[in-house]
């Protein structure tokens, strides 16, 4: 909070696309260079503004996927059916293109290196994006033990899989559990299904560990998982949520 008070007015800055990477068939990571970027905390987001030649604008919020690194900011964007901004960001944008970002934003759904307690991250679909920034930030600066439960539809929907596998072995104290709702890989330990009390019990920190929990994904997912965590004995005050819209983004 004191850090936020030091910053001046936060308003629109130009972001230049430096790199575009496919994550899945429908999601891409955009590597942006934002001159004057003041750095950010893991879990924060930006607002993205696109302007058409006639002045028409569209604004959407996207979580930052990367840990702070100078003036580089990575966003992972998933294509939303009938979306207005995501089709542009996932299908049109190329290196060299420019748009505007406002941020970093959000002082509550954040993880900071000074946090000592265990961390429980629970992601639904594209909700993994801000949690990935937490995974990336804690690897370089923190050692609070972390568990990530990442629920996706199918194996083809997973973001960052090679990196998550690498970090699970290389980073200290990171455990990753993937759960599938529609189709699981052959031999997966659990048949496809939504996150339920059994999975919470098997794959997440028990309540007496008193972790800070970060839950992110579509609104219905967040409601359900937050309820399961409370049922499992977690203090609601230690559960932080970030709801994306019903389709998985703020549209």
């Amino acid at each position, binding site marked *: 909070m004191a850090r936020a008070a030091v910053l001046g007015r936060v308003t*629109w800055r130009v972001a230049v696309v430096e790199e575009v990477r496919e994550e899945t068939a429908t999601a891409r990571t955009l590597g942006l260079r934002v001159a004057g970027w003041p750095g950010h905390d893991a879990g924060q987001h930006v607002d993205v503004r696109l302007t*058409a030649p006639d002045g028409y604008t569209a604004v959407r919020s996207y979580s930052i996927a990367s840990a702070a690194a100078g003036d580089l900011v990575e966003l992972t964007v998933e294509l939303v059916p009938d979306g207005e901004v995501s089709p542009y960001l996932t299908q049109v944008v190329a290196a060299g293109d420019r748009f505007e970002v406002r941020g970093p934003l959000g002082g509550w759904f954040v993880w900071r290196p000074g946090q000592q307690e265990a961390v429980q991250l629970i992601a639904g679909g594209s909700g993994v994006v801000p949690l990935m920034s937490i995974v990336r930030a804690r690897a370089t600066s923190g050692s609070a033990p972390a568990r990530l439960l990442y629920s996706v539809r199918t194996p083809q929907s997973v973001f960052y899989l090679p990196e998550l596998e690498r970090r699970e072995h290389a980073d200290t104290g990171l455990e990753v559990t993937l759960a599938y709702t529609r189709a699981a890989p052959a031999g997966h330990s659990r048949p496809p299904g939504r996150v339920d009390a059994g999975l919470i019990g098997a794959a997440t920190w028990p309540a007496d560990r008193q972790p800070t929990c970060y839950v992110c994904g579509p609104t219905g997912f967040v409601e359900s998982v937050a309820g399961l965590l409370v049922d499992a004995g977690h203090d609601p005050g230690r559960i932080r949520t970030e709801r994306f819209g019903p389709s998985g983004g703020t549209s």
Partner: protein
Amino acid sequence: MGIISRGFSGRRRPGEEDLPPGQYLTEGFPVLSAGPTPRVPTAEWEFSVVNEAGEAQRWDWTAFRGLPAVDVTVDLHCVTRWSKLRTAWRGVSLDTLFADVETAADYALVHSYGGYTTNLPLEDLLDGQAWVAFDYEGEDLAPEHGGPARLLVPHLYLWKSAKWVRSITLSHDDVPGFWESAGYHNYGDPWREQRYWDE
């Protein structure tokens, strides 16, 4: 104006139609709401008109549906820039609802279930300009679009067409409603692009 992003044009298609300034055509019917969707069973629904002296006329659902209703086809213009043309509704004209209302007041404040309000001159509700609509495209009006019944005042921006309409109170004073007291224009004529209060 912000920097232009190469190749971005948004959802719009070039309109062959004559649209108010700054509007674009939409094919869907976006659902916008300032809060949770009220669920009002028709058995509990009531609509009233209250004049400046506090005298009220009320209709329950049965009485309301017993009034003469008309089919209208109107264009909708939302201040968030989407327009939807030739939408088909069935509803009761405000002229019918006001037939026995005695008033010398100039202003109306529309109240919705859930607390939403919007204001407009009484004369903009009359003379075939407004309806309380209960049917959209041949089906009962869905809750997310304002059902059981909503106000329809198509010559003004759609925020004036209050969903989940509950009552209209008349007054000598013009009392700004929910969006009119938060920066939006007091009248809201899309053809003069009256979006914000200082335009």
